[in-house]
């Protein structure tokens, strides 16, 4: 009896794809033979728009690229601008930047883990527990800069305004409560036999493939490669704080989930150390003009965003807008390997793998 291969389109609108993402999947019975991703449904022309706007106005554009992690987008862009224009940032501004970036890392990893478990079928319970913690972080952001998600908190030279007085006790309260909540979530998820049997040894990615395909971020560290830009190319004051890099051993979905969970704990440690080291002072140097006008040249400063290595390549021709702005988006680079990871496994594993790669379509399509 002959069988035939079935080609199906998992459309841009689907409850399990995080954003508008289309895949054309061919499978034989239950096993996947081919999975072709088709992207571009969220393209908004951010890079072209950036050529028309001044350097401070582009900060609002960068918020909206990876919309679950605005602070780190801002940080990557502002570091590039500072290197291009030769601005030396103020110390307190840098410490505030680091606190904001690490809080954002906790929020982005919470979203990633929550939606991964949601794709596995737990009816929103772990997702809601993690979003409850993320709500507290978003309230902290609202205190700092007035908006919860699209922050535009950073400016060339530092941050735009100092944190208010009610921020510090709330931050301390958050730091006290978070480790117990994480223990709760670990009890619920990590040893759960159902999650273990659905995610272990599924979609394995080994070291050589990961390095050859320029994967970065938690996905790379889950495959066992010891690479974190905060340790290798330290930017801001990351060389003054100490934290560890969690690594996986096998490189399957379970490792990617565990690496993100442990990175949340490391971020809490970094924030506590920043709180000890921060000093009162100006948040932006006085001589930074309103309209930044850098000399001709180009710059690229990559940072460790929650999704991987994020960098803005800026070319300036001496005016108030950049001549060219290109974004090295980690989600797009990590997405190229989805097809190879998924071939040979079952249909039900497709969405779990996609969730563990942790893609944000705003960043893929810009």
């Amino acid at each position, binding site marked *: 009896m002959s069988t035939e291969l079935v080609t199906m389109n998992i459309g841009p609108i689907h409850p399990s794809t995080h954003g508008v993402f289309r895949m054309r999947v061919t499978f034989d019975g239950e096993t996947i033979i081919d999975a072709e991703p088709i992207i571009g449904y969220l393209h908004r022309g951010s890079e072209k728009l950036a050529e028309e706007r001044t350097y401070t106005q582009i900060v609002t554009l960068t918020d909206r690229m990876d919309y679950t992690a605005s602070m780190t987008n801002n940080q990557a862009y502002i570091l590039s601008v500072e290197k291009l224009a030769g601005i030396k940032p103020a110390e307190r501004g840098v410490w505030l930047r680091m606190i904001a970036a690490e809080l954002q890392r906790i929020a982005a990893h919470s979203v990633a883990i929550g939606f991964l478990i949601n794709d596995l*079928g737990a009816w929103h*319970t772990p997702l809601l*527990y993690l979003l409850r913690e993320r709500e507290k972080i978003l309230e902290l952001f609202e205190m700092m800069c007035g908006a919860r998600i699209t922050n535009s908190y950073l400016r060339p030279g530092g941050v735009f305004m100092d944190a208010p007085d009610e921020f510090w006790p709330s931050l301390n309260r958050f730091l006290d409560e978070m480790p117990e909540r994480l223990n709760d979530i670990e009890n619920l998820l990590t040893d759960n036999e*159902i999650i273990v*049997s659905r995610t*272990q040894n599924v979609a394995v990615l080994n070291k050589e493939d990961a390095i050859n395909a320029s994967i970065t971020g938690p996905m790379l*560290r889950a495959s066992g490669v010891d690479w*974190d830009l905060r340790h290798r190319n330290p930017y801001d004051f990351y060389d003054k704080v100490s934290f*560890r890099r969690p690594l996986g051993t096998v490189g399957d979905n379970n490792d990617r989930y565990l690496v993100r969970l442990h990175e949340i704990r490391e971020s809490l440690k970094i924030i506590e150390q920043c709180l000890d080291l921060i000093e009162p002072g100006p948040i932006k140097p006085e001589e930074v003009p309103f309209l930044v006008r850098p000399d001709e040249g180009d710059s690229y400063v990559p940072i460790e965003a929650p999704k991987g290595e994020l960098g803005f390549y800026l070319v300036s021709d001496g005016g108030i807008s950049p001549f060219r702005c290109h974004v090295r988006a980690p989600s797009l680079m990590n997405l190229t390997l989805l097809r190879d990871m998924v071939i040979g496994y079952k*249909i039900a594993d497709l969405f779990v793998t996609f969730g563990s790669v942790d893609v944000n379509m705003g960043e893929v399509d810009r």
Partner: protein
Amino acid sequence: MGPARDSFLFEIVYCHLSKDPSCDSVRYINFSFIPVELNWLSFSLTAFFWIFAFVNAALISVLMLIWGERRLIGKFQARLGPNRWGPLGLFTPIADAIKVMFKEDVEPTLSDKLIYVLAPILMVVPVFMIFPVIPYGAKSFLTNISVGVVFVLAITSINSLSVLMAGWASGNRFAIIGGIRAVAMLLSYEIPMGISAAGVVIIAGSLSLSEVVEAQIIPNAIFQPLGFLVFLVASTAELNRSPFDITEAESELVAGYMTDYSSMKFGLFYLGEFMATIASSAVIVTFYLSGWRGPSFLPIPGEFWFFAKWIGVIAIFIWFRATFPRLRIDQIMSLAWKGLFELSLINILVIALTMAIWPDPTSTQLLFMTGINWAVFIGSIYIFGKILSPNLTGNKIDKRKVVYGLD
């Protein structure tokens, strides 16, 4: 007429209708107007009254379960459930029902219209037949069939036929695949259910449900924990609930058997699943949690204990749904055939051996048998975990730890 008069519920209504002298002691109020010659009239009126009451009670309890499940899952997730319509959101099921009824009934062009229409009806109607058979109190049942256990198990397996009909009649290639997968799962979990029920029957000595309840001096959940666990897991799978809800979640990708149904036909599937949940909980309470029996030193009627345990078992089903993610289909089949089947065989073997050695146990012997059953329970789960579970699924599993990078 004889078996019907055993039932307390039947007696109450019958005696207040008929002037039959044999039930003089039961009449509370001296109100009866149908003479003895027209006994068939009072008999049929009583029967119709109780059928009406049971059907309505079943439907209303489904409405209450819809409300209860959504609010309880909300509390598990640290949020409120529906609370806008009516005080505490009590009118939400009415809004749900209106929504389902007013949707457009889209019918695909099919080859088999008859089967398409019959499938949701077949899902709902047989479940009504479970409610009259279950003893709610010492003599509160509607009929006392002498083969109650087999009857109940047979009815819970009709829904696999309905699923197959729904998948086939949709004419959609993915619905057929979804339907066949669902039927495979449902049939595989019938067998551990049946064998665990056999363990209950050995203790009771007869197949009748009221005998099963009366023979439980220690509740069967404590006496045979392995059987209880197997029956609970198999029931969850029979109801298509989490963690076995691949059919409801539409296989996360491919259409499930229900996709081509809309409006009231989908509403009937929904209704059937909830009613089956309530019926299965009643069955579990009867088999394993000693039905209407409660501590005898309290002057509370048996019906109260039954309802309390009933709500508890439904809450356990909802608790499972709120906590566990989904299993893949091949993992579900492995669990049934490589796990639950063997555990239920071990269970019935141990029970049969112990009942053969001590056919009429005194209370100390009962406690000793309970101890043996618990030792077998823990031992077999341990061995099952060590030997079977690393190879239970398609992929190997191991103990995973996170290492940290060296500086």
